[in-house]
């Protein structure tokens, strides 16, 4: 027997059932959400480390790195200062510090030119003879 209009619902009536069905959609319990999230965390791969971009080095930074970094630079600075100090220091003071071993018998302060360049005393004669 063919269905009559009375035997089936029209679209509006059927839509009312769908509306009721949508309103009755189950809401996940907090327990289910926790279980799903726990699974997510358990199966998640570790974050990939992000490669740091290569940094451009300044000329000075490159130089410092070439000689071995800041500790080496500090050593060089110390040596430089020591050298300057030795250059300016009074030799007799140095002699005194050395216990008179460097210039035995020296009584005068400072060096004469001939002390440093013994051959210089003959230089005048050479010039005169020339």
């Amino acid at each position: 027997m063919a269905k009559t209009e009375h035997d089936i619902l029209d679209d509006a009536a059927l839509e009312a059932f769908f509306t009721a069905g949508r309103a009755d959609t189950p809401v996940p319990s907090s327990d289910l959400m926790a279980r799903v999230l726990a699974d997510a965390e358990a199966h998640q791969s570790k974050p990939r480390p992000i490669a740091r971009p290569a940094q451009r080095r300044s000329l000075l930074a490159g130089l410092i790195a070439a000689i071995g970094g800041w500790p080496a630079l500090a050593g060089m600075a110390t040596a430089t200062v020591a050298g300057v100090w030795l250059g300016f220091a009074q030799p007799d003071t140095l002699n005194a510090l050395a216990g008179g071993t460097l210039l035995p018998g020296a009584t005068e302060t400072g060096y004469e030119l001939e002390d440093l360049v013994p051959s210089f005393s003959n230089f005048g004669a050479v010039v005169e003879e020339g």
Partner: protein
Amino acid sequence: MDMAFDANSDVTDDALLVAYGNGDREAAMLLTTRLTPRVLGFSARMLGGDRAEAEDVTQEAMLRLWKIAPEWRQGEAKVTTWLFHVVRNLCTDRLRKRRGVDIDSIAEPADDAPGAVQGLIDTDRAQALQAALNQLPERQRVAVTLRHLDGATNPEIAAVLDISVEAVESLTARGKRALAALLAGRREELGYGED
């Protein structure tokens, strides 16, 4: 907790799943919030309203999503479509195992309290709809449920069922006609008087 984007943001499920695969914990939370309710709703309707079993299926389907995430290629498939496909298979397996048990006897609500209150009427209607859905052939149930209760589009349903969009339209139309016939007999008890 600070969130860069909420569950309603424009970030696609696709992008979130890739972010999850790359170790983004926030993406896991957003995907869970977004997808679990839809998966549960679909599972429950496919399983005749069995809440506990629907929760198990939901957890299993989401677990498969987490596992596939590292291999997920953005833009190839819709996450929800993929999930519904998985849910459909899981539900089919469970319904098959139930064979021998009268599914309708589980799903049919204890309907002994005529609804004087509108809320009760709505609940009764929802239960009557579920009972009617249970009687539809499986593919019609999938099509009608996704189209009219979940709000999925016909192309999405076509992807879930591996059929053409035209076939989905045909399935949905047949499913609706069957539902209309099944529910007509309950018109009066559910608050639809004779017009």
